[in-house]
């Protein structure tokens, strides 16, 4: 049973860290995609959406190639003494990459729905672009940011394909719930696997339920 608990805690930890990591970058990207009409926009949007469309194992393999010691980034990391592959950091990385587009989309929509005149008003009243973002855009996009965060977190809890490619399934270090379910099933520990499935269902249910409630209450407050 304590094995199950440690797997659950590990999964929650990496999902939370991954979500926190992508929050600032995701909000920044969403803001720029929402406001600017630049020629590179379609390219950036496409690149950011790739993890949604590619098979997770493909994404995992790409990350693996980039990070292995003979690869471009891996070499730099090795020189700096930083180890990522097959550690919990790799789980965070795989999870972050796969969840990133799920965060950006709702946040971008929320930013796009803000009346641009409100932004202009903020500028005219004396706030520079960064201040207007912080004081007007962020508060008004609150609902979308929350939805995107919970969506990304829920996805992070279940990440499998990319994770197994760059982090393996090392119990206690990189074995998340999804990986543990797979592992247990294929060595015949069906009961143990089902226990974990049960826990996963409960958490997923709670995550989506919370999202629904929080976003609905928000809608009542800011409508009309």
């Amino acid at each position, binding site marked *: 049973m304590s094995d199950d608990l440690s797997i659950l*805690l*590990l999964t*929650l*930890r*990496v999902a*939370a*860290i991954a979500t*926190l990591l992508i*929050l600032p970058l995701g909000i920044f990207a969403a803001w720029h995609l929402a406001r600017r009409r630049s020629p590179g926009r379609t390219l950036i949007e496409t690149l950011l959406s790739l993890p949604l469309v590619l098979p997770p194992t493909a994404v995992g393999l790409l990350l*693996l190639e980039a*990070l*292995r*010691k003979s690869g471009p980034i*891996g070499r730099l990391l090795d020189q700096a003494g930083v*180890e990522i*592959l*097959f*550690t*919990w950091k790799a789980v965070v990385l795989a999870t972050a990459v796969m969840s990133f587009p799920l965060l950006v989309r709702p946040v971008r929509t929320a930013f796009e729905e803000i009346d641009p005149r409100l932004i202009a008003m903020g500028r005219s009243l004396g706030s520079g672009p960064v201040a207007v973002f912080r004081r007007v855009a*962020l*508060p008004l996009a*609150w609902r979308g940011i929350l939805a995107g965060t919970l969506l990304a977190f829920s996805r992070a809890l279940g990440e499998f394909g990319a994770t197994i490619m760059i982090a*393996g*399934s*090392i*119990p*206690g*270090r990189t074995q998340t719930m999804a990986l543990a379910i797979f592992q247990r099933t*294929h*060595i*015949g520990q*069906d009961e143990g696997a089902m226990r974990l499935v049960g826990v996963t269902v409960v958490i997923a249910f709670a995550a989506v339920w919370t999202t629904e409630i929080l976003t609905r209450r928000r809608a009542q407050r800011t409508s009309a």
Partner: protein
Amino acid sequence: MRKFLGSLSLLAAFFALGLADPKPEILVFGAASLNESLTDLGKAHEAKTGTKVVFSFGASSDLARQIQAGAPADVFFSADTARMDVLEKAGLVRAGDRREFLSNSLVVVVAADSTLKVTAAGDLANLPKIALADPASVPAGIYAKKWLTGLGLWDKVEPKVVPTLDVRAALAAVESGAIPAAVVYRTDAAVAKSARISFAVTNGPEIVYSVAPVAASKSPKAAEAFVAFLAGPDGQAEFKRRGFVIRGSK
């Protein structure tokens, strides 16, 4: 809003702390068939030396691939020498550190309540499906293929083969009733809950396990110590108890 972000970061820091690697421990990648024996030996070693031993079991081929990609394993215990050769060639283990004292034998298993008559290799070709650890890469499957090829039966059996990720998956397939028979190690059959040995392979290939500390290990002394423990009298006794065969250590 700021408060929300603030509390999130505190939470994150808290979680991150829990994930740092503080205790002295070594990571051992072991072939799937070594699951129970290595786990027990790991506990014994920890009791003796205080070093915690953490395991990752799986197909030797998969584990070797991970080590080649940079996985931070301290010790690698492979079910055949070919996987270890690959690592040695890549400079990831030193020839002088390798210990090849462990061996095993193959058996054919069926479900415990099975009524099938499978008593010789020739009967395998009559079954609809046979589970083997992937004969393209996993040692257990490679040994099985070598055996059947030596009897001239591989071509007949191959179309029935369902390749699994490792030898324990092949066993699990039989235990669940999904597949009628599998070729696994004798030691795997010993821990099976709902599978029995249908017959033992008597003319199979030579099975040689290989264990070595990984050259890039961050705890080379602890790794070497554990390998020595495994190859020593206590280790050998445990393996014998489980049904493994000792070759005569290096």
